[in-house]
């Protein structure tokens, strides 16, 4: 069967408009583009990190705060060696139907490790990073959470990052 152009468009159309109508001012808008920095060496020789808003965290750690009306501005380190069974999701605002059966659909640690084993990726940082995307204060998100994760990623010696909002 041939894919039509509509099959290639976003599954949930008008997301930006919907979120803005419901939660005015909660979304981050940038007017400028960030200059592109090319990776200085092959991916196969680079150390990669992963940053996710999926609310994935090691089992038994303080759950992300999914009830606070203004959100949770903390992040968790997740060992890149963690098995899916060691992890759990605390986040209400995206569909977790797939992730509940195979975490790799939103937090693909096993696939990333496969790619390291194959030599396609040089290495993973010891930890990857996770937070929840339901936050009503985008200015605080940028000023605190984003900066804290960026500092931690840099301290880990990451040369590239894969970012996946949930």
């Amino acid at each position: 069967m041939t894919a039509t152009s509509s099959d290639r468009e976003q599954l949930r159309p008008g997301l930006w408009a919907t979120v803005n109508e419901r939660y005015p001012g909660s979304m981050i808008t940038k007017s400028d583009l960030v200059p592109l920095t090319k990776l200085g060496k092959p991916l196969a020789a680079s150390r990669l990190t992963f940053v996710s808003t999926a609310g994935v965290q090691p089992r038994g750690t303080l759950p992300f705060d999914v009830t606070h009306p203004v959100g949770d501005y903390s992040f968790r380190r997740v060992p890149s060696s963690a098995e899916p069974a060691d992890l759990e999701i605390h986040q209400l605002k995206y569909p977790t139907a797939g992730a509940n059966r195979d975490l790799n659909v939103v937090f693909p640690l096993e696939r990333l490790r496969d790619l390291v084993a194959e030599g396609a990726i040089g290495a993973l940082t010891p930890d990857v990073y996770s937070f929840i995307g339901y936050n009503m204060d985008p200015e605080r998100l940028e000023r605190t959470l984003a900066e804290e994760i960026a500092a931690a990623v840099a301290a880990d010696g990451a040369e590239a990052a894969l970012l996946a909002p949930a």
Partner: protein
Amino acid sequence: MTVARDVTTHLKPPRAVFVPFMMGHHFGVPFHRDLQRRVILEALARLTRAEQSGEIHDIPVTWAQARREGIAIEQAMGLRA
């Protein structure tokens, strides 16, 4: 990675890869290792291939096909009748 092109257009990350998948399913469907792997590799390829900041690269996949393939994989694994 994005499943919301309109949101990404406002956010203007230097590199983005769009997949027409359900929210929370950026890397595909359960147990579909090949698709999960392919999405990651296509995203990481932008590290060296992206030429212009702000470009959103489309991965030529569809949700319907991903789901069909996922169902076939689960049937082969005995997870689904």
